[in-house]
């Protein structure tokens, strides 16, 4: 009995500091933000009502969903192509693919967004080159618009899309593919009718991760969108710091959390958490 008690005390003593820290520094202030959304500037549901009627907020929500959907589609397709080589290529191909995935993954989001500015801006690499070969006379608008945001976000999210795909491709049994080939299926047909369906859980997992990440994206849209292609996260920032309207910023945050929570719940109905790593 004494041993049992000391076990429980030991667990409590070890686990309490972190739990206490997160309750005080995360859960409690989050409730404070929820309170803001109901009390600022006046108590009531006014801010949530404004969300439903404000045309600007709605257009930002719709733009965020559209950009997130496009980015998800492109990132998962691109990640699929490079993951196939990373998991199933020859040893040399694997090393190169791993390098191309991990180097961007470890480099800060600011450096990567800046790299795209250097490539896409009016005096950037692409416009300078196209003008020097006489292909265009005026620089193309590649940045400070939705195109730039989509390119930058896709670049940021491909490595995150790779990991769930790699895990599903690693656990796939080679003999099934060899059997399909042995039965006379072409390479293309084996890929589309055997390989892709067997990695379905990886595709769902990686699409959900990319989609959820893109909903709350802040840095890349702010830099590559140049204030013209505002997404939800940037709208929250603007509402807090530029047109002080803390209640609306807080209400958008609460809606965003609920939406992401619902998506995560949906994800875990289809995929076990372990398949995502």
């Amino acid at each position, binding site marked *: 009995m004494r041993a049992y008690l000391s076990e*429980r005390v030991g*667990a*409590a003593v*070890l*686990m309490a*500091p972190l*739990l206490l*820290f*997160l309750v005080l*520094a*995360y859960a409690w*202030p989050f409730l*404070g*933000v929820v309170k803001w959304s109901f009390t600022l500037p006046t108590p009531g549901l006014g801010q949530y009502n404004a969300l439903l009627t404000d045309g600007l907020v709605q257009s930002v929500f719709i733009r965020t969903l559209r950009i997130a959907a496009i980015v998800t589609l492109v990132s998962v397709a*691109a990640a699929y*192509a*490079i993951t196939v*080589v990373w998991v199933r*290529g*020859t040893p040399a*191909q694997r*090393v190169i*693919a791993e390098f*191309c*995935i991990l*180097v961007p993954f*470890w480099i*800060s*989001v*600011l*450096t990567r967004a*800046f*790299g795209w*500015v*250097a*490539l896409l*801006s009016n*005096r*950037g*690499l692409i416009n300078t080159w196209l003008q020097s070969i006489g292909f265009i006379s005026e620089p193309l608008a590649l940045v400070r618009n939705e195109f730039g945001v989509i390119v930058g976000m896709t*670049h940021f999210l*491909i*490595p995150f899309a790779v990991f769930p795909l790699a895990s599903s491709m690693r656990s796939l049994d*080679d003999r099934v593919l*060899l059997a399909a*080939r042995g039965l006379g299926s072409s*390479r*293309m047909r084996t890929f589309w009718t055997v390989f892709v369906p067997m990695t379905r859980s990886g595709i769902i997992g990686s699409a959900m991760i990319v989609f*959820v990440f893109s*909903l*709350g994206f*802040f*840095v890349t849209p702010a830099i590559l969108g140049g204030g013209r292609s505002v997404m*939800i*996260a940037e709208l*929250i*920032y603007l509402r*807090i710091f530029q047109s002080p309207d803390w209640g609306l910023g807080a209400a958008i945050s609460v809606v965003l*959390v609920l939406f*992401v929570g619902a998506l995560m719940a949906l994800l875990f109905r289809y995929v076990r958490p372990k398949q995502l790593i």
Partner: protein
Amino acid sequence: MPTYRPGPVSLALAALVALFLLLPLLAVIPVSLTPSRMLAMPSGELSLRHYRALIEDPRWINSILLSIRIGIVSSAFSTVLALCFSLGVWMFQPRFTAALVGFVLLPMVVPPVVSAITLYFLLTSISGFSSFFGYDTWLGVAMAHAVMTVPFATVLILVSLSQLDRRIDLAARGLGATVWERATRIIMPNIKFGIITAALLSFVLSWEEIGVTLFITSVNAITLPRLMWMGLRDNIDPAIAALSVILIIITVLVLAVRSVVVRLRGAN
């Protein structure tokens, strides 16, 4: 046994994606060498003036030192908390473990902008009582970074614990070791790589954190990413290109060393 290798179409598509992934990292190199004061491709002449600006301008040095200080404090704090928590989970397997771990992982899954506004609320509330700990102070930033990095540290330590053989702990317990002896002399030496990785990852995440930092700093606690952000938003400062090149080179070197070490350890 023959393995199923990607064909030429797969390889061509993967090469395109690889090019897309590396292109923006390569693009900063020529920009960093431009002699112009503005963002432009160098035409003819090359110059190292933007690299010199990094050393000579005290703003860059100060923010690098600040980021290192914040990174060390927040990483130490989050690693210790994550280690204690994970040891508690592994050794005692309490009820509601899944719910408790889920709660700890929240800052990792909640959209960063929501964590940012939450921590902004926290630090502005603290600022009412204290002038050296709260909004726009380095200690406040370190604490906010600890909140954001602790889920990652916890995941890494829990993963390395899950690969540990429970029987060595049971043996120690059967021989009369106390909880403290089991934790410090049996378990921790066996997961030391997990602990070191957790501390390093926490440091790196804090070092490059910008989403939350942007909400909780204004003029005093200017970390390196915050200074880069300021240089990116207004007139783009090519010193950022020089800094980016240095950061990219460090990343490539660290990854190369790591892959060599992994390969050597695998060979032995």
